[in-house]
């Protein structure tokens, strides 16, 4: 399956609200190789979600460029190369699970060739929702709804999968299990994945490359390479390599002295 390299080059965005303009992102850059798994981590309000929305062409940057496999984000979106999983499942409540997963196919048109190697029914099985095809979203738990949203995001075989804290609303145990499943699905689909999170453990466990963001103005302060092999297992959560990477991320967030400058800036 295809994947795309993602290059974000000195992207800036200013929000003009009612008060003073807010610099959401100031010259943020990152690079993620095709087929890789990246994680963006940072305190609330540092522009993580904003950066993801820029990649998905939901927002337009004021300056800088974004390239997905050499194309602009608009071209990539119009070619349906981007899959997006939101913080909330955002399923259409009047459509069944199967109909929700089929929605992107209905929008693109079945003749476009964008249809995946896996049919909607197979994707539903892949995310563990077999038997719930005809259930309405309101009849499912939050975790199951989010699985359906992941199946929907994969149905067009996206070259890049953007995940905005997809399991943020779930409890720790469900979340850990969903993360493992997400890694399995990502490995099978071969897509490039970029995950926004504010859990250090999650970022290091999931990603090959962790982008640490600092707030006000939002920018990518540090990139941490995670040296753990694939496939990742729960035992690796206790490995020294994971601790080393996690400490490196923690240093990037709080500074090596342990002075929580980033957190302070946020809480004030």
């Amino acid at each position, binding site marked *: 399956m295809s994947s795309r390299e993602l290059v974000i080059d000195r992207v800036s965005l200013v929000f003009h609200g009612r008060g003073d303009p807010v610099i959401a992102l100031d010259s943020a850059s990152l690079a993620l190789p095709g087929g890789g798994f990246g994680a963006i981590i940072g305190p609330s309000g540092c522009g993580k979600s904003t950066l993801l*929305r820029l990649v*998905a062409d939901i927002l337009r940057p004021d300056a800088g460029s974004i390239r997905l496999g050499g194309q602009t984000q608009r071209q990539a*979106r119009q070619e349906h190369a981007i899959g*997006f999983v*939101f913080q909330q499942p955002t399923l259409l409540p*009047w459509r069944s699970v199967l109909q929700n997963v089929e929605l992107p196919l209905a929008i693109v048109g079945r003749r476009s060739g964008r249809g995946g190697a896996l049919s909607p029914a197979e994707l539903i099985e892949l995310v563990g929702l077999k038997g719930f095809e005809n259930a309405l979203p*309101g009849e499912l*738990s939050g975790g199951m709804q989010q699985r359906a949203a992941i199946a929907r995001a994969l149905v067009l075989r996206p070259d890049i999968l953007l995940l905005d804290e997809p399991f943020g609303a779930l409890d720790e145990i469900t979340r850990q299990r969903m993360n493992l499943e997400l890694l399995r699905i990502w490995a099978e689909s071969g897509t490039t994945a970029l995950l926004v999170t504010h859990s250090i453990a999650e970022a290091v466990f999931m990603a090959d490359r962790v982008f640490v963001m600092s707030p006000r103005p939002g920018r990518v302060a540090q990139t941490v390479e995670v040296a753990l092999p694939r496939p990742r297992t729960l035992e690796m959560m206790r490995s020294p390599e994971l601790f080393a990477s996690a400490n490196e991320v923690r240093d990037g967030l709080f500074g090596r002295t342990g002075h929580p400058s980033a957190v302070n800036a946020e809480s004030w």
Partner: protein
Amino acid sequence: MRRLWVTTLPTLMLLVVLEGLKRAGALPVFIPGPGQVLAAAWARPQLLWDNLLPTAGTATEGFVIAAVVTLAAAGIGTAVRRVWGAVYGLGVVLHAIPVIATAPLLALWLGTGAGMHVVIVALAAQFPLLVGAMQGLAAADARQIEMLHCLSASRWQMFRYLQLPSALPFLFAGFKVATPLAVLGAVTAEWAGADRGIGAVMLNALFSYDIVTVWLAVLTCCAFAGLAYAAWSLIERSALRWNRTVELPT
């Protein structure tokens, strides 16, 4: 079935109480007992049918026209944000004009035919339909809009897959409020000039002090509007099955 009971019980009780009061001689002469009215309906079913059908037809026709026009207006108001307020403003002004006063004027202008009747029904029923359509088309969830934007959905697809289904609960609320107004509009229109129809029966009976027939016409209106309302509720229940599902805990 239980629901039907709960919905109709207060009305039935009111009728029983009225009948009891009438038999006890506690009601004035211009309020007949429900039994008398029922007997009148039983005695002249043809009168009822011959006059209910044109009224029902006018009410339905005007309602459909008002629904189509307001949905189109709401569509324009939603698509072109600058005219949103103007569409609402026009709806409010049209709604504020008393139909009872405009009906004779429209009769002078359009004649007392079916065209005038339909226009008055549409005027009487338009506002709740407009409010339902305007609020409904604006009710689509912002995150769902982003989701469809990510899929590069066209404007039509956005309307078809998201905005219209999101609008349905609001549209149904509008339909239900507008239905009795359409019946009332049809009767008012017939007062301004008609040879047949429940409104015409009502007016003739009033002039000939035929109290029982006046009430027969009134109750026929109520029954027809009530049945139409019930029909909307049934359609709503089957069309909006998703709207009643409860979210389970994770």
